[in-house]
């Protein structure tokens, strides 16, 4: 089975600083794999263990982050056999409709039976790319997958936990599924996998390789600004002695009445 796993590199949030005017400074943020994609990679690795002769291609679309060798190695050390990257500086701020369209073109070039994506990306968390990708490719597509019940070369049986119910679904392949964070616990790669990752192939593509027509401008990102913090009272009592706790309790009583 040919498995593709969507893998986005996002800035480490802890390195992002909010500037005085509310804009974000990402210049010191190192790239990391979007946390939700770790679940997608793990799900792919688990399927590969079930279906003989499976291959996993990590597919990543984005800007200069993809040139980062350490980040690439991190992706490959988690189980994919190879990495396909579509790099363009304009893709640094790509919105879901653009990312999905480019991923669809790359996936078609690559060939696939199953594409697995995470729940959303750690930066925009729009939760659109997986479904849009399936719709672009005109294959079965599903979000919120919480369990892979069984897998064969042409059929996947999955569970999908929704707000109040759990669906068990038969999905014919090819398909694109997006998995929820509770589907698995991503494995931390060992030294052997990390060393092996350096030898795995990386296939770098450009937008022109994909021969895509101009992008329909569906959504425009106007700005990204830090949310305004609500004004809070910030009355903090130090110490857990009886009188301190009593003071705290009296505040609590006031706001509860």
């Amino acid at each position, binding site marked *: 089975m040919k498995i593709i796993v969507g893998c986005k590199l996002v800035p480490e949030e802890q390195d*992002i600083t909010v500037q005085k005017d509310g804009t974000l400074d990402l210049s010191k943020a190192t790239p990391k794999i979007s946390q939700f994609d770790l679940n997608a990679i793990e799900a792919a690795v688990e399927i590969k263990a079930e279906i003989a002769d499976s291959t996993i291609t990590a597919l990543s679309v984005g800007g200069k982050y993809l040139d980062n060798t350490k980040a690439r190695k991190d992706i490959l050390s988690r189980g994919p056999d190879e990495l396909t990257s579509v790099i363009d500086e304009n893709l640094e701020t790509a919105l879901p409709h653009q990312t999905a369209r480019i991923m669809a073109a790359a996936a078609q070039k690559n060939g696939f039976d199953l594409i697995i994506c995470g729940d959303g990306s750690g930066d925009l968390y729009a939760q659109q790319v997986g479904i849009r990708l399936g719709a672009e490719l005109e294959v079965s*597509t599903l979000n919120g997958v919480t369990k892979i019940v069984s897998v064969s070369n042409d059929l996947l049986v999955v569970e999908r*936990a929704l707000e*109040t119910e759990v669906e068990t679904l038969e999905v014919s392949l090819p398909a694109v599924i997006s998995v929820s964070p509770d589907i698995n616990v991503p494995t931390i790669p060992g030294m052997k996998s990390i060393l092996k990752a350096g030898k795995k192939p990386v296939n770098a593509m450009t937008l022109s390789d994909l021969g895509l027509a101009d992008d329909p401008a569906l*959504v425009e990102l106007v700005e990204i600004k830090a*949310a305004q913090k609500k004004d809070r009272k910030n009355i903090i009592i130090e110490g857990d002695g009886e009188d301190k706790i009593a003071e705290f309790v009296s505040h609590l009583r006031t706001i509860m009445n």
Partner: protein
Amino acid sequence: MSKISNIWVFSDAESRLPEVIAGGAELGEKVSAFVIGSQDQATQAFSYGADAVYHLGEMDSARIVEAYADTMAKVIEEGDKPAMILLPGTKRCKALASLLGVKLNAGVVTEASEITSDGNAVQAKHMVYGGLALGDEKIASPISIVVFGGGVFQPAEADASKTGEAVSVDFIEPKTSIKCIERQPKQGSSVDLNKAKRIVAVGRGIAKQEDIKLAEGLCSAIEAELGCSRPIAESEKWMERERYIGISGVMPKPELYLALGISGQVQHMVGANGAQYIVAVNKDKNAPIFDYADYGIVGDLYTIVPAIVDAFKG
């Protein structure tokens, strides 16, 4: 803000229908609701204020809700434009939004916390970078699709005098095949923190699972629901996902949010920030949560919590 002439709404969860119709009425001149289900549900949609109801028939148990995307897309395509599709943030509606986005060549914004329009273009804000900032997006296509988060619209009240004749729509079979073989009510708690007036939440400051009892004791003393931070639900798995508060979890709007041993990372605080009052107990004086708190106490929660319980019991 000028209204959009034509708004389409749908909710797979009956409980969110009053909200989505109210939102449609706020943003649009005419609200058309899609209903999958009984005739009663169609009647209900009218009572909440829908101007038109498109009845897609009874739910076929072998289908998933998203299988109706082609059917909805056809009706929307034939309708007046500019148009907007407004959906509540359930899993299925998020999937529908993206499917309709591709089918109708329409821009989509999900998890919108603020929606405005000039009658044509729709602009919506939603959180990015784990809650660190708000992204402001403008939809440029003639049809815009917005999925909104909880608490954006006040649910409409039912008014039985509002009625109408629903339009029946024939189902269009999608090209792809997903078959539902079973549907089961979700196991475990069906807690809805969105409805809680008070929430006590625990974080990493709790040393072991048994100690959650301490927080439960506090919950019963002050009539609160129990919540937690992400590590407690996802890494430790000590509580269900429905109880975890944060950008990728629940974003409730209680009167009181009492955080026990939660450091207060931004991803958590954006989930808690809807609370009228935030109160924190943490032994680390420098924990970021104190910046977000109305009241806080720096000390050992194992000393403080039993004392609060005693105070409120007594």
